[in-house]
């Protein structure tokens, strides 16, 4: 039976690994899937994220209510949209032209990349979060609630209760959640915008997001 304490993390690269480490530390069960079979990443998972389970994409999704996308954005069309229907999907991906190619749909300045992902994952509830902070900052800066110097992570989603669920997760991972608005608002977290790369405290992040037109 899936619970909110079970996560699927799709992508076993730098970001996926750091998120898995933080989630395990926070007491979550984590199923992590790379781009090929689980045995390809089994050793990596055993050594870098003990406690997590290497799984296929489908198995990982099956086990969890919350799925984090930590794969290269250019591969989003490989996601099993049917299986992801009904799930809360956290889009932590960014358009990185160097890897994703420079001639893509993501060059459209009016639609944020998370909206494109939401269009593809029609049956899922997509929330953009954990996308703006570099993976080494995620690793170095996670700290318990209330500790001085705690950093914030922005959340953009259309449904209030989904945003709250993501906020709980963000808090558990070691960061102050800041809900900045609906999914479309996530454009201000993208590469080329002020909050991309942001490693800021709650107040500062909130202030920049509020001032951003």
């Amino acid at each position, binding site marked *: 039976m899936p619970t909110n304490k079970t996560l699927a993390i799709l992508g076993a*690269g730098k970001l996926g690994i750091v998120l898995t480490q933080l989630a395990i530390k926070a007491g979550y069960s984590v199923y992590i899937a790379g781009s090929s079979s689980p045995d390809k*990443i089994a*050793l990596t998972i055993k*050594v870098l994220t003990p406690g997590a389970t290497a799984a296929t994409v489908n198995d990982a999704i099956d086990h969890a209510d919350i799925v984090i996308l930590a794969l290269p954005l250019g591969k989003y069309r490989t996601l099993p949209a049917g299986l992801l229907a009904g799930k809360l999907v956290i889009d932590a991906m960014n358009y990185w032209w160097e890897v994703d190619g420079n001639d893509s749909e993501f060059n459209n300045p009016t639609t944020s990349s998370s909206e494109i992902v939401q269009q593809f994952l029609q049956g899922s509830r997509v929330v953009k979060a954990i996308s703006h902070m570099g993976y080494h900052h995620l690793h*170095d800066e996670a700290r318990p609630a209330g500790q001085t110097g705690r950093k914030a992570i922005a959340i953009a989603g259309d449904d209030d209760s989904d945003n709250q669920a993501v906020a709980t997760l963000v808090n558990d991972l070691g960061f102050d959640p800041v809900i900045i608005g609906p999914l479309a608002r996530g454009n201000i977290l993208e590469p080329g915008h002020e909050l991309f790369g942001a490693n800021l405290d709650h107040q500062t992040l909130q202030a920049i997001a509020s001032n951003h037109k």
Partner: protein
Amino acid sequence: MATKNSAPAKSDQPYVQFGLDSFGDLPRDADGRLMTYAAAIRQVIDEAVLADKLGIDAIALGEHHRSEFSISSPEMVLATIAGKTTNIKLASGVTVLSSDDPVRVFQRFATLDAASNGRAQVILGRGSFTESFPLFGYDLKDYEILFEEKIQLFAELVKEEPVTWSGTTRPSLTRADVFPKTESKHLDTLVGVGGSPQSVVRAAKYGFPVMLAIIGGSPDRFVPYVDLYQHAAREFGTSSDFIGMHSPGFIADTDAEAVKIAWPAHKANFDRIGKSRGWPPITREHFDYEVANGSLYIGSPETVAQKIAKSIRTLNVQRFDLVYGGGPMPASARMHMVELYGSKVIPRVRELLAQPDKPAKTKNADK
């Protein structure tokens, strides 16, 4: 497969190698003007000659295809350095194998190895930039397969026997014999990795030693990667246990002087690259964080030596390379940095490493 390392081991302490890495950033001349690409290359050659005189173990030159950097053909520069030096290892850092031909890479470095009496060292990598892909006609969509196939072929080539190979990214080879052969029958080959776990596992699979590029954040983040490499090497039955690291830094006579020179140069570089990648300008706060707790080794010889010694101990690496002179920095300051690294920092790090490991020693570095 260990690297050729004949350095004297005085005690039971393993001998740690120290290197200097450059991408051939364009420095500024005495009047503050940006130097030409040609002058920037000659500057690196002069720095390498000085490094050799000071007994620094290695110079590693990274291949780039961007306007900030003068070095796109490391082995050409290394061959020139070979003729002017006697001991220093001549490394690339990295050679972007994905967009190169493994056969030609082998030939060029085997040639360098001949010219330098066995001092050539190729560090293969995917690089953190991708300009070479369109330049040489490769599709970024093949990013993974290009490296995977080419490193596999390279692992065959370094056996220095006729190679039979087929793949999808270059024409196949049937008992192809590749020349020149090296005298040692072993072209020193490492793999540079930037923190992708798959890259670490792949290097271990082929038995190549690893250089970790640690360019941001706390170095102890990489402790599990060292574990992963060792686990993977055992699993694949390869004997490699050599791990090195490279991180950026700058040394001047005092902490204040080092920061005064390094900050504007670092910012110029970071912001320029960030502009094309969509990240915002670096703040002084972020810079100071990296200097204090992260992966910028900037300060006086004592500050930098303390920080290097701490990282070497934390990660248990056998080689530390300082990426020096990043950004438009005065050429004279770079030369002085090489001098300080060779004459003060390295001896001091060796002294620190010879002492028993006590946490109290790191106190000086925190000032």
